[in-house]
């Protein structure tokens, strides 16, 4: 096949994007673990590792720009590079959200709301990203629709979790805590808002997974159904 060097560069780009996704998913897994175990060392490792993801992201971005400029890709090649260019942005954002998890883990002192299952929502979103990347690697359009549908579940779980927190706050917690001092209320409020932020971050990871699926669908089928 002609243009062998170019074909190799395309193959390398795909490998690199998949590698980046592995790194990001691992960091996110670590962030969830750090949060569950209140493991400060692990949390710091996630936070400090973010610059690696950023560097990977910038390198891959440059690779895409070089391919656009030097090879003038068209048709399937064009869609592959354009989709990859967008997908690495989503991966980089997921990396940032993993860092957030690390920071929450450092700050969190105890579980104020054991009813809210952060870990299971986190696992679900992680699965979605993994599946979206698998669809990208396998160029599998059907899976993209399925991933997009799963996001509704994530959204519902996140909404339910937020509601639990707020309802709990209104109905019971404050009654029981009457007579506690200002400092305790302050700490409690910080815990609550941190938990709400965590839920929102997980919900966003789901959105990024849908973005990846949407770009993959565009890449494979030139179908923008999931983009809008």
């Amino acid at each position, binding site marked *: 096949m*002609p243009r062998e060097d170019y*074909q190799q560069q395309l193959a390398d780009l795909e490998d690199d994007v998949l590698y980046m996704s592995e790194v990001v998913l691992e960091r996110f897994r670590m962030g969830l673990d750090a949060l569950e175990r209140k493991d400060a060392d692990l949390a710091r490792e996630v936070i400090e590792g973010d610059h690696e993801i950023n560097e990977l992201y910038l390198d891959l971005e440059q690779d895409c720009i070089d391919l656009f400029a030097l090879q003038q890709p*068209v048709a399937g090649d*064009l*869609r592959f590079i354009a989709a990859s260019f967008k997908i690495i942005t989503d991966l980089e954002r997921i990396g940032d959200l993993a860092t957030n998890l690390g920071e929450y883990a450092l700050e969190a002192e105890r579980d104020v709301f054991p009813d809210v299952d952060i870990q299971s929502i986190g696992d679900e979103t992680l699965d979605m990203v993994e599946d979206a990347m698998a669809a990208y690697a396998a160029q599998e359009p059907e899976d993209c629709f399925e991933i997009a549908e799963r996001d509704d579940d994530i959204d519902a779980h996140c909404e339910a979790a937020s509601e639990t927190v707020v309802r709990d706050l209104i109905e019971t917690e404050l009654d029981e805590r009457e007579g506690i001092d200002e400092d305790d209320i302050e700490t409690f409020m910080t815990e609550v808002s941190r938990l709400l932020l965590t839920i929102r971050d997980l919900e966003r990871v789901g959105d990024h997974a849908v973005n990846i699926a949407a770009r993959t669908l565009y890449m494979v089928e030139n179908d923008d159904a999931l983009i809008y």
Partner: protein
Amino acid sequence: MNNQIGDTDTETDTNVSTDSGTDSGLGATAGVETSTTTTAGESEEQVRDEWTDYRFDGPSKLTVENLDVWYGDDHALKDVSMEIPEKSVTALIGPSGCGKSTYLRCLNRMNDRIKAARIDGSVELDGMEIYDPNTNLVELRKRIGMVFQSPNPFPKSIRDNISYGPRKHGEINKGLLARLFGNDDSEKEAELVERSLRQAALWDEVQDRLDDNALGLSGGQQQRLCIARCLAVDPEVILMDEPASALDPIATSKIEDLVTELAKDYTVVIVTHNMQQAARISDQTAVFLTGGELVEYDDTDKIFENPESQRVEDYITGKFG
């Protein structure tokens, strides 16, 4: 020997030799490695009618139906049907020997000049059959002008290059007789020369030396002069066969800008080997493959972003063969 656009009898060797240097399709199909096998492993891809059934708004300028061309036993163009929209740029791309130049030449009956060529089918200009035996070829080629790969100005002054065609067509009277009878059109000529050179974006560069020999111009200027010469007879369609392939990038970009500008008033059909050029300047693109087959014809962005044919995809991404 003359060299005149739009004049059957006076086309020169310059043109003919230029032609055979490109992919005129003259025996070119033999030995060209085009295959119906795709990289996706399909052993034989069948062209589907909907791939070439291009729909567009607005009137069509040229309507080609079931056009076949043979050079001797060589079937150079196979059953091509295509409608070309008015006032737009249509690019014809494809590997050497695919028949795109043959096709272009059929649009103003340039293939009539090749004795071994046999043409079957219909080409209509504004609904009028150009292959009608009563067609006036001089008139036809005035309406459908042509620009070739290598600039081929007459070895005359810049001014004469422009005014030659209109004078030949009797639109400008000049010379001793005209002066004697008081219908000298010198002013009209000056206007026409300026207007044509301006349209071809050459006026600023040559206005001070209109009487210099055109062969003293650079290649890019010569090519724009040929375009100006083509415009001087007021055509409706301009056929361009690789007009920028012999030019440097700056001259090329001037030609490309010019093509875009011309499409506001004229219907431009351009053959190019440079796919990026086709992508940059054309509104719709027709891809010819495998010895004379029109495989896909659609909006240019559709062809370059999401072609239907795997063979077209293989060709434009460079995986051909």
